[in-house]
């Protein structure tokens, strides 16, 4: 028997000590409104502290920058899958996007707004490679609190967000590899470019359905 099977005892407060009462749940997770947290906020500091702790924990368990970024990306992947479901549900668009460009626009606008309260700063197609797109954020949230030592200059903790994007793309059946690169411009030292390299099957499909 499931311990969290709903067992209603009375209507309000119970007499029993909650610490010893048999386990039961007031509202199941499925009964909660998915929009409950839509506009809820926490302090940016809370995220900053949590994220820096995640960075430190991860750093202690990896060898080299590539491995480090991969681990962070893996952490973000699941977040992306969930964000996709939530945002699609809220956009009331239950149809799956199939065109790569539409998916990327969706990330650039809707997802970025949901996550960071603003649109991404640019979405560009690579001129060199047909299967590459670039999404830019001039002031990314996650590396505001992380200072990277000189010897790790290549490292960008937006690898986490790159993982989120990868998760979203994956959820759209659009397999791609996403990496984060610091490309500063004037007065935007943290500007990050997310390089999205589509999988060959995605490119093929795009060609075939043109």
């Amino acid at each position: 028997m499931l311990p969290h099977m709903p067992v209603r005892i009375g209507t309000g407060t119970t007499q029993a000590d909650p610490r010893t009462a048999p386990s039961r749940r007031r509202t199941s997770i499925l009964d909660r409104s998915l929009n409950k947290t839509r506009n809820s906020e926490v302090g940016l500091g809370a995220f900053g502290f949590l994220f820096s702790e995640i960075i430190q924990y991860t750093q202690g368990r990896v060898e080299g920058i590539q491995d480090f970024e991969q681990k962070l990306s893996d952490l973000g992947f699941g977040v992306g899958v969930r964000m996709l479901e939530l945002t699609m549900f809220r956009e009331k668009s239950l149809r799956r996007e199939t065109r790569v460009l539409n998916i990327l626009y969706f990330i650039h606008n809707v997802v970025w707004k949901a996550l960071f309260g603003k649109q991404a700063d640019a979405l560009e197609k690579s001129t060199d490679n047909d299967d590459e797109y670039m999404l830019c954020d001039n002031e990314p949230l996650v590396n505001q609190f992380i200072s990277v030592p000189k010897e790790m200059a290549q490292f960008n903790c937006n690898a986490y967000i790159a993982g989120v994007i990868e998760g979203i793309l994956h959820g759209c059946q659009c397999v791609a590899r996403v990496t984060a690169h610091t490309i500063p411009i004037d007065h935007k030292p943290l500007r990050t470019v997310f390089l999205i390299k589509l999988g060959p099957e995605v490119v093929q499909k795009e060609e075939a359905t043109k």
Partner: protein
Amino acid sequence: MAKQYKTLGDEIWKNRVEPMNAELFIFTYGSLVVQLVKDYEDYDQVNQQLDKMGYNIGVRLIEDFLARSGWGRCTDFRETMEVISKIGFKMFLNITPTVTSWASDNKSCSLVLDENPLNDFVELPLDAQQQLWYSNILCGVLRGALEMVQMQVEVKFVSCVLRGDDISEIRVQFVRHLQEEVPINDE
């Protein structure tokens, strides 16, 4: 008395805290817990690790708290707990847990989390329901932060809605005042 803290907490939240979308925070925390469960394969160790990470956060977070709130020294432990609930929790998580169940010696009490953003979207698998304290990081944060203001406390979850309990309750036990000294490195 308690009202004054609440007003200040609300004022700080409105004017001195930069807010962000809670969902990214919630999912990020979830992602961390999942990773810890994978890495340790043992819920007790995950609890410990979360507590440790919280401690690391707490020792640094206290400075942010003091700077933003401008709060001075608390007169007693009761006041400390009110400030933690109405200002501290408000500032970082935008919630105000209820401070309740004071022991007669005023040295221990409970924080009841009517809301806990960390818990949102979370459903624990059955085996985890018996052992994992999903939000255990909060205990470490309290312990670390209070240690930095020379208060040694023991903090632990005694119930959690994710485990099927009616309420989420953190028990805080005051141990002693610490002498001014170089903090011990927990690493």
